[in-house]
């Protein structure tokens, strides 16, 4: 049994795993060891975004992220840790205001992905509020290679775009 020291949602934790090469995927370990349910199993092949977490502020697909790629001290943030009903993250507040979901199973992906998208924008020195077309480009995988798409099946797209635009206005 091996382990790696991480900071998960602000808490110092030790993530344990069985393999000798750290070939386990992060999604299942996070859910099982820390009872998290923000990152969800969607496809297991990095195509939909349901398992999105922030690794040191950047959105990654935890379903294909091997433990071996982590370094001690890495910071992981999940939907479970970004806000509460009493103190919602601006992105969560905007999703509620816009009622930006139906089954909402996918919404972890858009909330976490959009936060990562805005983090990157800020890091790049761009504090302009993205247009809905720019947000749609990001969520459609047009800005990454290979493309990382964020899929919604219920058809809440219009509300999700509006919510992210709104939240960006408050965050940037």
């Amino acid at each position, binding site marked *: 049994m091996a382990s790696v020291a991480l900071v998960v949602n602000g808490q110092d934790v030790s993530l344990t795993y069985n393999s000798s090469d750290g070939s386990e995927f992060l999604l299942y370990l996070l859910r099982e060891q820390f009872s998290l349910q923000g990152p969800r199993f969607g496809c297991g092949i990095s195509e939909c975004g349901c398992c999105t977490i922030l690794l040191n502020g950047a959105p990654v697909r935890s379903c294909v992220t091997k433990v071996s790629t982590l370094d001690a001290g890495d910071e992981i943030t999940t939907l479970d840790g970004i806000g509460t009903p009493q103190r*919602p993250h601006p992105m969560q507040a905007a999703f509620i205001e816009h009622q930006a979901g139906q089954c909402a199973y996918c919404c972890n992906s858009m909330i976490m992905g959009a936060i990562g998208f805005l983090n990157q924008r800020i890091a790049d020195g761009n504090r302009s509020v993205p247009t809905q077309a720019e947000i749609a480009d990001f969520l459609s995988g047009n800005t990454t290679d290979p493309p990382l798409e964020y899929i919604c*099946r*219920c058809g809440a797209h219009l509300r999700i775009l509006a919510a992210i635009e709104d939240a960006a206005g408050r965050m940037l």
Partner: protein
Amino acid sequence: MTTTARVSRRKFLIGGGAVVAAATLSATLGELGRAAAESVVGSGSLPAAGEVDNQWVVVQAANPHGTGTAITVYTPKVELGTGTETALQQIVAEELYATLTQLTWVQGDTDFDPPSDSASEGYTAGSQTIYVEGVSLRLAAAAAFQEILALGATYFGVPASDLRAANGVLYAGHRSASYGQVIGGQVVTAAPTSTTPTKPYQQYTIVGQPVPRVDLPSKFFAQFTYSTDVRLPGMVYARVVRPVGRNATFAGWGALYGLALSYPGIIGISQVGNFVYVLSSDEGTAAQVVTDFGSQIADWTDGPALIAEASLPSALQSDEYVYASDDQVDVGNAASAFAGAPVQLAAQYFTPFYMHGPMGGSAAVATYDGTTLTVYSGTQGPGPLQAAIAALIQTQDPGFGTDNVHVIYTEQPGCYGHDGADDCSAEAALIAYLIQGPVKVQWSRADEHQWEPLSPAMVHLMQGGLDGDTVVSWQHDMYSPTHNSRPGAGAAAGNLLVSQYLGATPAPMPQLGPNTATRNAPVNYNFANSRVGRHFVTSFTLQADDADFDAASPLTWVLPRSTALRSLGGFSNTFANESFMDELAYAAGVDPVAFRISYLQGNTRAIEALAAVALLAAWVPAQFESPGAGASPYGPGPGPYPLGPPPPAGHAVGRGVSFIQYENDLTYVATVADVDVALATGVVSVLNVYVAHDCGLIINPDGLENQIQGNVIQGVSRTLIEQVNYVGDAVVQNGWYDYAPYYVTGYPVIQFDQVPNTRIALLDHPDQPAWGAGEPAVLPMAGALGNAIHAATGVRIRSLPMTPTNVLAALQAANVPGA
């Protein structure tokens, strides 16, 4: 009005007193909603005696001191992610003069909701929740409120007519008491009668408001428990090793069975019939082992191939596979009128197999304590699933009964119909029974894509006759496999995938009847001569008459297993009907909106919907120089799209209209779509979609808009992008898009940058019954888009999906310049 409702059978925990109102959820009540013309909301006849009471509204004190007001609703209808839980709560709170925060909702728990023998009652499906259950719960709440008024009259010593109620409190002049206080220690049962007063709609303060969804915040804060989040102590994790095809059979362990079994964390690999599963102490290892070694854990004997995908359009019409036919509609003499028509049009339309594609693979948790098999399931029908699971376990233990199964509804990703939820739940139940303990079964993406029951391909043969600008004949022959193979009691227990792995056979293909394949096959247009022929196509053979009949494995699939997807046959039928209606309008030289309205005379609300969408879209009537030979300002076709700037070079723009009345007597939807067609590539971009929607009384306008948007977007996806592909007897798609490094073949769906601007007109009729909105707006989408493409290019595309490849081929075949 006090009755002897069978409360004792329920497992209610009523500490002190309570008012308990029973309501029957039944098709009978649904008819109340249907009878729009003659009945006002909430009135009408009561269910026939003998029907099962399976919904309950319980009003109690909110605390042990006997004060406050708490309302608990027990219902077999479940929240599928569409917002009906919120809407139903609005109805109950309204009728009880209470607040939403006083409500507790218990849904889809078979301990409270006895299973129904009627297939239609136990499911949450078909846009029926609001118009069936909404009426039923309103009546139950109203009956409970009358009992509370009577108790209040005694409590205050004043006539009930002197009482006023608000927010769960009764007022008598300056005195007040909560419902809990006036109920005290009394237990009163109530049931609605034909004279139970309901609140006049003019007094509604909660119904009709855009109340935020009660479930969304917890979902956005990761506090909501989906079925994949259920954790039981000692739970192990299972993944299923699937056969190589629908007709394949287990032939023995494969080359990597031993290696897989030795993996750290793997508890066991087991097999019953064609059901092979891996058990692990952690989910990730189970997933990795099945992903990496799955094809070599077990060996399979290939089975016969399905009807080849390419031959579906002809095979679906062949006598070999059509097992039942009749005319659903036969008005006048359509055949002879067609023969005598000066202008005759005939066309064939085709739609492919579709998948539901829930965002996550189905997941279920089950446990068995030696007596009760408890299943946390995302099923649409907890009661029917309970019966089907009991029958499944009976194959292992003949003494096992329905009472030994407890299904607890636990939401999954949106299903849009009968996806893998039931099958996954049954697999979890069987494993839990076999290992005598708790287990989670998580379907992989490939499991869901390749093994969920699909929406079937359909073919439509259309014939129309024109005399001048008058339709003198309308004929539609539709060919379809079943749109309903849900599991349930009796023969339907064999519809579970895992039951079939164990040798059970599916329920017989359905008899001729309305409402599955035939939904919205008839049109609401008044034609003097019209005929709708329905032709049901078999999906499997049992080969009992064959010389080589194998009693051990008699089932052979000839088509992919098919079932209910949002609107059932309605999406395909409406594509054919509304496209062909457009063909007739153009041939007649009449504006497509005006053409439709001319055949809807007397159907006031239908005309209102078409007029509303025309207004919303600023529809400019098409001008035809002569029938079929007009010219639009921009496109080569005679389409009415003179708005906005001309399209860029190499592009054509056009606009199309489409209309339905859901199930021909419920919700009205009129839709206009604007498209841009890139002529060199065949890429269709949907610019705008306009929808006018009339579902009667609107319970929650924001929830309604959300549903309509979802239908529009899914409709675009199904029209332009989606199509199941299979080879041999196996679906080839195992992910969302092609990705070679993971050996993924994609079933692409709409992306954020493909979603159209959408404008919606909600036509509220508060004095009319509330109808459903979960499905109706998806029906017109394919017709609207196809008609828009025709308006832009002059080319009629009659097969879905309208992918760039298919559109470009059609443009080139028609010699469209630039294509």
